């Protein structure tokens, strides 16, 4: 996938929050708290742990990639045959925390083998840009 395509298809949401990182970390990592703002889940803050988010529209297959308490949390996010990575970054500020969520790298979902062709989605996204130029 081209760099431009990656950037086009990445999602970043950032916010200044008036609570310390430790408190936000609890909300990001304790299943009963995660459920209150995101989705039902069987999350554990352990690298390699596989878990699901579930909602009435379906479920998201995830695996924990990185856990650095009160600082960074990263997990894969597989839905619709697309695997992306969600990374949370907590930075303490004088008034609380700068919370950043980045979802990126929409590659093929290895766990859903039936979707086939490993190179398929990235190649498609790369060519999508060319296609888009023709849509008006």
């Amino acid at each position, binding site marked *: 996938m081209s760099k431009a395509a990656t950037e*086009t*298809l*990445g*999602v970043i*949401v950032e*916010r200044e*929050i008036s*609570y310390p990182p430790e*408190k*936000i970390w*609890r*909300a990001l990592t304790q299943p009963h*708290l995660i459920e*209150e*703002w*995101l989705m039902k889940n069987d999350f554990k803050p352990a690298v390699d742990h596989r878990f699901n988010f579930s*909602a009435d*529209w379906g479920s998201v297959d995830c695996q924990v990639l990185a856990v650095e308490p009160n600082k960074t949390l990263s997990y894969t996010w597989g*839905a*619709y*045959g*697309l695997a992306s990575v969600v990374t949370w970054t907590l930075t303490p500020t004088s008034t609380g925390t700068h*919370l950043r*969520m980045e*979802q990126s790298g929409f590659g093929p979902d290895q766990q859903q083998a039936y*979707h*086939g*062709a490993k190179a*398929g989605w990235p190649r*498609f996204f790369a*060519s*999508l840009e060319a*296609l*888009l130029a*023709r*849509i008006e």
Partner: protein
Amino acid sequence: MTPDPQDILFKSLADPTRRAIFERLCREGEQTVGALTVQSGVSQPAVSKHLGVLKQAGLVRDRHEGRLTHYSAQLGALAPLIDWTGQMTGFWQNRFDDLEDLLKRMDQ
């Protein structure tokens, strides 16, 4: 999170054979089922079935000419996919709102 049009679009394009057929129509323009079959590596009934799924998703249009059916790509149908990152951003912004609400309710 994701409304139906995107769901249908993703499912339609999730199959690599189907995506290849769609890409070929985008690249080379209108084609008959026969012409598409020759290069697809699967049987004509399989190609027809894939085209049926693509048609249902609005990704291709068919045009009958005598006994032949010609298929063409409808690039406009990709619009929900283009909107997807925008909608994901909206999804996460709403989740941030809910997270902040939760933080207000939580014990220190």
